[in-house]
């Protein structure tokens, strides 16, 4: 399929918007390395057809580059890849960020080794309260960002109407939530834009907000169907085994028959929805109004 050469644009927001790209597969760093500098189109090209599902302001240019997975402890990048990404970001003039998942205790030593490679001022996207404590205590020069696994909200693409989505409202404005994040030195939130979300849904939050686009995650497990591909039958679908990272080679796409719901896919242990045009417009409106100050482009 032909990739369009332009993406819908909107007027510039009040302040400069930050634009990041989140890469999960460290092997793909090689493709990025051929660029002397990165442009918004370099980022958008990575999304393939899904670039049509993103609306960026005219002046949005790359400011951040992220490496790592929010969803799987087996996808923590090697220190060699982190070194390489850090060096590339220095060349491109971008801020580097390491993305980290919910952790089992066995991940903490590899995490320490990874975090130790980051230059001061690098961001760490945190999705586990224990990892937040680790970063605060042992790596105070890094800037922790609360990842989207900590920003809980209903994101079921099957909900029949917005009324259902109001059953469990998010708690992002709750005083204790803000105080706890403050206490951990977390200064920014990264969130999904949910089905039935309104442009102003992140207005008035006390933290700068980034939104992942054009894919939001619906659910993630620790059990991984694809990660069990190489295991003996009785050992499959259980925690604690080794993984060959099959999710980097395959994904599943589809829908519920007879519905016109959001485009849905599954990669490894995680299900995703892709933003529809109306959602992309709502995110763009949130950016234009200053309610969202960063877009992080990422695949599914």
């Amino acid at each position, binding site marked *: 399929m032909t990739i369009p050469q332009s993406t819908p644009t909107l007027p510039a927001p009040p302040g400069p918007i930050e634009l990041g790209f989140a890469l999960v597969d460290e092997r793909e760093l090689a493709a990025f390395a051929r660029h002397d500098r990165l442009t918004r189109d370099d980022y958008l090209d990575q999304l393939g057809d899904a670039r049509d599902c993103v609306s960026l302001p005219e002046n949005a240019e790359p400011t951040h580059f992220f490496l790592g997975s929010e969803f799987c402890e087996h996808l923590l990048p090697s220190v060699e890849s982190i070194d390489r990404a850090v060096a590339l970001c220095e060349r491109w003039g971008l801020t580097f960020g390491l993305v980290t998942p919910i952790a089992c205790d066995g991940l903490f030593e590899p995490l320490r080794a990874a975090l130790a490679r980051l230059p001061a001022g690098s961001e760490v996207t945190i999705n586990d309260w*224990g990892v937040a404590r680790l970063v605060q205590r042992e790596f105070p020069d890094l800037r922790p960002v609360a990842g989207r696994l900590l920003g809980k909200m209903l994101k079921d693409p099957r909900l029949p109407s917005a009324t259902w989505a109001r059953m469990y409202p998010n708690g992002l404005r*709750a005083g*204790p939530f803000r105080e*706890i994040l403050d206490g951990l030195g977390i200064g920014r939130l990264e969130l999904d834009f949910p089905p039935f979300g309104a442009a102003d849904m992140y207005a008035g939050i006390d933290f700068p907000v980034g939104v992942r686009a054009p894919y939001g995650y*619906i*659910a993630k497990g620790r059990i991984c169907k694809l990660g069990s591909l190489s295991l003996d039958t009785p050992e499959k*679908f*259980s925690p604690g085994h080794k993984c060959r990272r099959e999710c980097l080679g395959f*994904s599943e796409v589809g829908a519920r028959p007879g519905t016109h719901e959001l485009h849905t896919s599954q990669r490894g242990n995680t299900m995703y929805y892709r933003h529809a045009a109306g959602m992309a417009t709502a995110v763009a409106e949130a950016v234009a109004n200053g309610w969202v100050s960063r877009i992080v482009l990422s695949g599914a």
Partner: protein
Amino acid sequence: MKITAPISTPAEVEPLVRAGARELYCGVVPPDWIQRFNTSGVNRRVFGNLNGYADLERVVEKAHALDADVFLVLNAQQYGEQHLDALTEIGARFRSIGGNAAIVADISLIASLAANVPDLAIHVSSVATCRNVESARFFAGLGASRIILPRDVTVAEISAITTELPELEIEAFVLNDGCVFEEGTCHTVHLPMNKGGPICIDNYQFEYQSAGGGQPHERALRRLEQNDLDYKRWLWYRFGNGFSVAPNGYPWGPCGTCAMPAMHAAGVHSVKIAGREGASERKIKSVELVAQVLRRIEAGESEEKVREFAVGLRGAPGHCASGYMCYYPEVRSRAVVGEVEAKVEVPA
């Protein structure tokens, strides 16, 4: 080690305690909640709750008379800031009638309860996905006295937490109601079955794609399809062997009874039986099953003997041999269940 069991009516208290439960957990939807907030979402489940405060009082009174504790679930994944005061009031009222602990996942509510109802113990729900020592320390710092570990942890991971934090009570799943995704990172609702039910068993029609685009090669596709068949079988087990019970009335589905000796040795405080929404008979049989295993552990039987007993309880060791009915499959003993995977017919 105690057995923690679900209840949804006061009538279930006595049979469950008599069967061996020392801790009971329940939810309640106060009558004014729906009027105030136009939602029944006081906790994670819309169904399986007590009818109101009067029932809650009866539950606490009956349980305490039988020397059992009662915990109240306020365990939605998240609450809006407009709910916090009302939930804190529910916690205070529960404490005032003698309730023992609140089961909570939302960090704001944990902080609010700790500040405003300090004599109500806080148990961190499995919905909080706390599964490492540092995270457990974080929740303890907020005021929690117990961590209910999520599903899909290993016994070694449980043991690491109990060893490192002996002052914290640790509760782990032992029976029923397996989720596919982690409860704390599954942002869906269990829709009515005619609208799709839980998303993990909804009728999604997926096709595989290679990372570079297009279909995988034929050989890879065959392996993926075989893996899908195994996964379908695992799902069948995960959902109670097709939502069924054994001929002797014991529930099928996710089970960790073989791991109970190891959990007992590791200092696990309580083992959790899931299923507030289930029928009373299922709850009672669940407690009976776990209690039989616990009694043998407490009597000092060897780990192997206990496992052998646990595997024999439902009279169908083939299901245990599949490895797919286990909460802690790594402790599945081939000496007990057999080297060769049992051939069990799984309906389509």
